[in-house]
């Protein structure tokens, strides 16, 4: 079976990700696309560099798909995440969730991007005009004092 959850160095086509979840039982597909932002609080980004622990990242993306299946009825999920060097406005992540009705699709795709930021081993390095930095936790509400995610994060 072709992959529904993958990490790639190649540009992501949102349509390709969406096509993977289109099916006759679905009345809605919600897609979320994360793209590279040029300005963050006035600071100019030149480009981003993403790195992944690829086999584990693909497993964790699939785990998010299973969590969505448990939380909402009759869902199909596909997620692609890009790694390597990404220029401004390029697609970093694309999520598609199909469901019979729209409300579940909206909620589940929103859930998926939040979970990516919690459990999927992918990192982003900012390249600015005056330096670089690997970014840490962007949700700023997760404690990494413990070396294992809290139960609800696993």
């Amino acid at each position, binding site marked *: 079976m072709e992959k529904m959850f993958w990490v790639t160095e190649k540009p992501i086509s949102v349509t390709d990700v969406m096509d993977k979840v289109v099916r006759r039982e679905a009345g809605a597909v919600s897609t979320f696309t*994360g793209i590279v932002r040029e300005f963050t609080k006035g600071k100019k980004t030149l480009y981003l560099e*993403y*790195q*992944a*622990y690829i*086999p*584990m*990242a693909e*497993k964790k993306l699939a785990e998010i798909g299973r969590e969505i299946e448990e939380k909402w009825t009759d869902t199909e999920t596909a997620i692609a*995440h890009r790694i390597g060097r990404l220029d401004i406005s390029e697609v*970093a*992540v694309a999520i598609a969730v199909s469901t019979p009705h729209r409300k579940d699709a909206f909620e589940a795709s929103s859930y998926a*991007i939040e979970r*990516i*930021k*919690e*459990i*999927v*081993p*992918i*990192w*982003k*390095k900012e390249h600015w005009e005056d330096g670089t930095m*690997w*970014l*840490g*936790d*962007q949700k700023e509400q*997760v404690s*990494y*004092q413990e*070396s*294992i*995610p809290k139960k609800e994060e*696993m």
Partner: protein
Amino acid sequence: MVHVLFFAELQEALGKEKITVQAAGLTIQELKEKYLQEYNLPNIDQAMVAVNEEYAPESVQLQEGDTVAFIPPVSGG
């Protein structure tokens, strides 16, 4: 042998992606004390740990052939 993987800032601090050590029978905590203290890895205690691609506590006892990964706070998306 146990393979130990590093990512993001830890990989840059170490200067390589991977080391291989005689750590079968040790816990993650013991592996850090025995093999990683010689390196300057400032944020390693903030990293999560995975063993064979699944998050694991530092108390887990390593087995021959395991792959350990130190996972700094993630920032995908």
